[in-house]
Each structure stands twice: as C-alpha cells, then as structure tokens.
C-alpha cells in the first residue's frame, strides 16, 4: 500500500472515530434530556410536595424562569408554587421539540400547550414557544433557565383565516388552466424574490416543473424553508399560507386541487 494512501486512510479514520463518538454521546445526552423534560412535565401535572421534591432535583439553584408575561421567578418561587398549590397544570403538551447539545449544555426549544396556573397566573392553552437550557453537573441534567413567549396570531391572522384561493389572492402568479366538477388545475409561476399574499389551497397534488427554493409562512406564525426538486410531486392538505421564492430562479409548478 502506498504511504500516501495509508496517511489519507489514517486521517479519515482519525476524523471518523471522534465524529462517531460525539454523535453517540450527543444521542445519549438527548435521551437523558428528554427524560428530564418528561420528569418536569409530570411534576407540573402532579403539583404539591411531590412536584416540589422533583423540582428541587430538576432545577439548578440559580434557576431562572421567565414567564410569558415577562415576569422572573427563581427556584424558591417555583418550589413554593408547587407546595402551595398555586402552580399546577391539568394539561401539559409538548411539541416541536428540538434539542441541541453543546458539551455539557443542552438547549431545548419547542411549543408548550398547557392548562393550569403558574404561581397563581393562568397559563395559556393557546401555546407558547419556549427555550429550556440544561447543564449537566455531577452526572445529572439541571435546568438553569426556562423562558416562554406566547405564540401570537400572525399580524394578518384575519386575512389568513379568511384567505382567498391562490388564483384570487395572486392572479399574476396563479392561473386556473382547467377545471371540472371535481378538480381545478392551477399553474403557478413565481419569480425570484416574490412573496404572495395569504391564500388558501384545497387538498392538492403539486407537480414541480422546476427546482424551487421557497420560504413558507404558516398561519401559526412559524416559517419553514423548503427545496423542491424538478419532477417531484408533493401532496398537501387544505390550508392557508403565504410563500416566497427565495431561490435564484423562477418557481413553476402545477397544482391539481380537489374542489
């Protein structure tokens, strides 16, 4: 074997081993953090002394809680809330959880829909976007900060809720090229940089006639970037949204919508 090849192989191995070890460590840490999130959820649902005991273990001594009203509470406040019954949830549902591990720190973001009280203040069932930061000390993960922000209706929620069909909202870019009693066929051509007004779609199949990189604005206030490949088919359920061509070429697609 040539010496140069051996060196390259050794280098690849030297890089691959730490990368794989790091991935394994992160995956293990993610599992541990998920377990802590579940313990916190159970404590919030139980309330009382049991929750206070769990909170004492799960919250760091320098824990900071920033509520959806922008108020600040510390660990003692939180434990007291459990003990006195002023903090307790009847419902506690987490979604869109994303965990990022940076060594001994975990940064978790997600949405919490809860129903109950936090230190006597009603929590919103509508949902809040949260960040929880955890630090691993002495072999266990402790929460050091938790902040929540209410997910607001988009500024044009009204427009979003009553959004007209695409070909009405943006006739320059959406044209009906055929229809019968069951289906409507729409040709969409969106130039680079164009964002269309809020509009609605029925259940539909979308055939992408070009590659397309676009940002999708959803009615819950979130955005998502997608890259659609020429020749691919995407299925979408009826919904309202607004999309923006953030790529470098025109997006062209054919939509077959159920009436």
């Amino acid at each position: 074997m040539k010496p140069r090849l051996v060196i390259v192989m050794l280098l690849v191995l030297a890089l691959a081993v730490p990368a794989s070890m790091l991935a394994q460590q992160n995956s293990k840490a993610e599992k541990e953090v998920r377990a802590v999130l579940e313990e916190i959820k159970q404590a919030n649902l139980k309330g009382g002394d049991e929750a206070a005991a769990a909170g004492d273990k799960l919250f760091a001594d320098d824990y900071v809680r920033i509520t959806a009203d922008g108020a600040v509470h510390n660990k003692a406040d939180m434990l007291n809330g459990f003990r006195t019954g002023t903090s307790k949830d009847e419902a506690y549902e987490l979604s869109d959880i994303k965990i990022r591990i940076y060594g001994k720190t975990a940064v978790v973001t997600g949405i919490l829909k809860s129903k109950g009280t936090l230190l006597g203040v009603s929590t919103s069932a509508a949902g809040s976007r949260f960040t929880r930061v955890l630090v691993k000390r002495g072999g266990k993960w402790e929460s050091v900060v938790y902040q929540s922000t209410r997910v607001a209706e988009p500024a044009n929620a009204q427009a979003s809720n009553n959004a007209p069909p695409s070909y009405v909202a943006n006739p320059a870019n959406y044209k009906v090229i055929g229809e019968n009693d069951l289906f409507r066929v729409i040709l969409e051509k969106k130039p680079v940089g164009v964002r269309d007004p809020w509009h609605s779609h029925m259940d539909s199949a979308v055939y992408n006639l070009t590659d397309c990189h676009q940002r999708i604005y959803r009615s819950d206030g979130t955005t998502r970037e997608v890259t659609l490949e020429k020749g691919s088919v995407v299925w979408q359920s009826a919904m309202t949204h607004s999309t923006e061509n953030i790529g470098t070429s025109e997006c062209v697609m054919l939509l077959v919508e159920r009436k």
Partner: protein
Amino acid sequence: MKPRFVIVVLLILGLAVPVSMLAQQSKAEKEVRAVIAKLNEANIKAGADAVAIFEKYLTDDFVRIPPNGAVFTKSDVVNANRAAKSGLEAQDLSDIKIRIYGNTAVVTGILNSKGQSPLGYGAVQQSRWTRVFVKRGGNWQCVLYQNTPIKQ
C-alpha cells in the same frame, strides 16, 4: 518538609484554584459582553455591516424567537438584514445577568427597543430576553436569542 508548611502550601493552592476560576469567569463575562455589544450594533445598523457581524457571531444553527413566538434561523436574520435599509431605531439593555457554565454562557436581561425589526415583527417597548452563547475556536457565538414582551 514541615507539616505546618505543607498545610500552608495546600491552603494557598486550594484558594488559588477558585481565584483563578473566578478570573476566568470574569474574562468570559467581559468577552460575552463585547459580543452582545456587537450584536446590538448590528440590530441598529442593518445592511452589509450587520450581515458581517451576524455571520461572525451567530452559530449556523442559531435560533431566534422574537416577541411574537415565531422562529427564525441564522439565514433568515442574515437575509432580512441584507435586504433592510435600516434596523431598530434604538435599543437599550439593562438588568444584564451573565452566568458562565464552562464553554456556555446564559445571559438574561431587559430590552427597551424602538422601531421595526428587519425580520418583520413590530416594535415591542419592553421585553425580557435570554441569549445563549457557546465558545468555539476561542470565540463566543450566539446559539439562541429569545425575548418575551413584559406585561405592563
């Protein structure tokens, strides 16, 4: 070596380590404050200068949760600032608390701001915020920034 002398040396060493740790924390705090100042500068400037700052001081997996609870990525921030002619009119940070956990910094504070963000959400007079930084390759970078309006 006399036992008393050994004890004195050990005591000095025992004190020296925490003192050195405190010095490190204080250095880290200063560095993090400097990065926060750069990010604030970018929020006011917008345009190419802001883009350069955000490219340098935001991690690629940066997450921004603004006062309306939406989620933006680093590329959202960079693209919005590239296209923007102006940033926030004013912003003032107060009640800043920095906690250092090894190579991570968790910072909380109050923000008073005026104007429109290039990301498109309206001005919020006063909000409580959290920023999380990680130190990579000797530089502190922001991985998360969230703010919540303070109920008046």
